[in-house]
């Protein structure tokens, strides 16, 4: 593995980090940058938010999110499943919309309440 460069996102300073093959980190202002670089290069995760179709509600889209961060490389696979969902109102905030989405052990949950029109 060659040297990799990353922007640290732990705080707004945004250090430009360089990481070599032995996970030696340079360019970090504080030690939190080292931990960030290791995680970001080995198991990066993200919380995904999106919307799904909902019928019979006051608005036609329901906002949703992953109940926990998912592996970064699964983002588009999860989006594919989200795209297939069509719901009927009412839905409450926190309702599970998809269980174990794309085999991530994470659910897709509603982030708003949509009442029947």
């Amino acid at each position: 593995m060659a040297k990799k460069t990353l922007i640290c996102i732990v705080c707004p300073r945004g250090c430009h980090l360089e990481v070599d093959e032995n996970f030696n980190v340079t360019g970090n202002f504080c030690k939190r940058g080292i931990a960030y670089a290791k995680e970001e290069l080995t198991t990066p995760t993200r919380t995904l938010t999106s919307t799904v179709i909902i019928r019979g509600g006051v608005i036609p889209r329901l906002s949703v999110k992953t109940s926990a961060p998912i592996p970064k490389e699964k983002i588009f696979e999860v989006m594919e499943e989200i795209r297939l969902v069509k719901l009927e109102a009412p839905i409450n905030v926190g309702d599970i919309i998809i269980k174990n989405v794309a085999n991530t052990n994470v659910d897709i949950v509603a982030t708003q309440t949509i009442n029947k029109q």
Partner: protein
Amino acid sequence: MKDKYDVIVIGGGAAGCEAALAAKNAGVKNVLIIEKEKRLGGILNQCVHNGFGLTHFGEELTGPEYAERVAENVVKAGIDVLLEAEVIEITEGYEVKFASYNEGIKTVSTTALILATGSYERNAGAILLPGERPPGILTAGQAQLLMNVEGYAVGKRVFILGSGDIGLIMARRMTLEGAKVLGVAEIMPYSNGLNRNIVQCLQDFDIPLYLSHTVSNVYGRKHLEGITISRVDEKFNIIEGTEIYFEVDTLLLAVGLIPLTSLLDKLGVKFSKSRSAVVDERLETEKPGLFMCGNSLHIHDLADEASKEGELAGLMAANYVLNKNKKAEQKVKLLQVSPSNGVNYVIPNFVNYPSEVDEITFRLRVSKPMLRSKICFYVDDKLIKTKFYPFLIPSEMTTITLKKEELIDGKSLTLTAEEING
């Protein structure tokens, strides 16, 4: 609904709801929120991404979750809420005239008024965007509403001008919904968004960021067909010969927000550099009983900050209402607050000496990125406070509190931001 209220809040977003809650909790009986949309929450409702609530609720929420919690609190507190009603005029005597979907045009009066009307987006005209004006040019917030609330796809091949957080968030959002985002251009040599968003919204999806670039032409008559971007010099003039052409059907403009203050027009209050009414540390304007908070006062990075400001406005409006008749003659001096040397703007614009609040909150933005810096407070020529920072950036609002006792008598309070040499 009543004919007369103690406090009326105009705008039911993050700041307005919190202002109403604070006023109610402080003991004000009759509080009304007037909101033009069908639900409370304001722009939070269309911000389906996460990152909200870390300071206000102590956990990370999406915009709609934040909005719903706030709206629930408002209902529980017994605050009157008028939805689908737009305020069209405020008179000197605080008669609030509104146009309501259900009630027609009506007037309601109040003792204190809090303006929390949010902001509007700069558009193609505001930035003198060159070239044609075909359909396909939208502000980022418009695209966000169309996509996240109304369910439209908006575009397939997209370019984004402006690297503020809204632009970055929309670059990711459109990519996730199947659009190809060809790039984001930023006229400044640095991004105006949080680094966290550069990573999570652009780098994650290999979307290039063109710093020191702007849109130099727009093509298409019936619909947008393409744009060119060009490099700019340090005076933001376009450098000839640096054009790059992109074939796109959508251009999103994320080029800044401006406080929405049209309701103040007839009241004749003085404006400050943040393009809104001048306020003291209690967020009161020059007109007694008229308070400002949230993006209609100055542009915030975080809803949490707008909520916090709303809370103060609500509390101060409550003090105004509850003490109105028993106010003794107080000898209070006003110090003018001025941004100087490296500070772009600061809220408040005046402070009372002595102050009614124990801790005076200053919210400011620096004019350029700075490493190893200090922010200094001077009363006339005397330094009264210094605070050190490892770094300061214009895209991050800086908040500093000054204890009431730290303030001394004088004419003016000047804030500077200076880099520490060596």
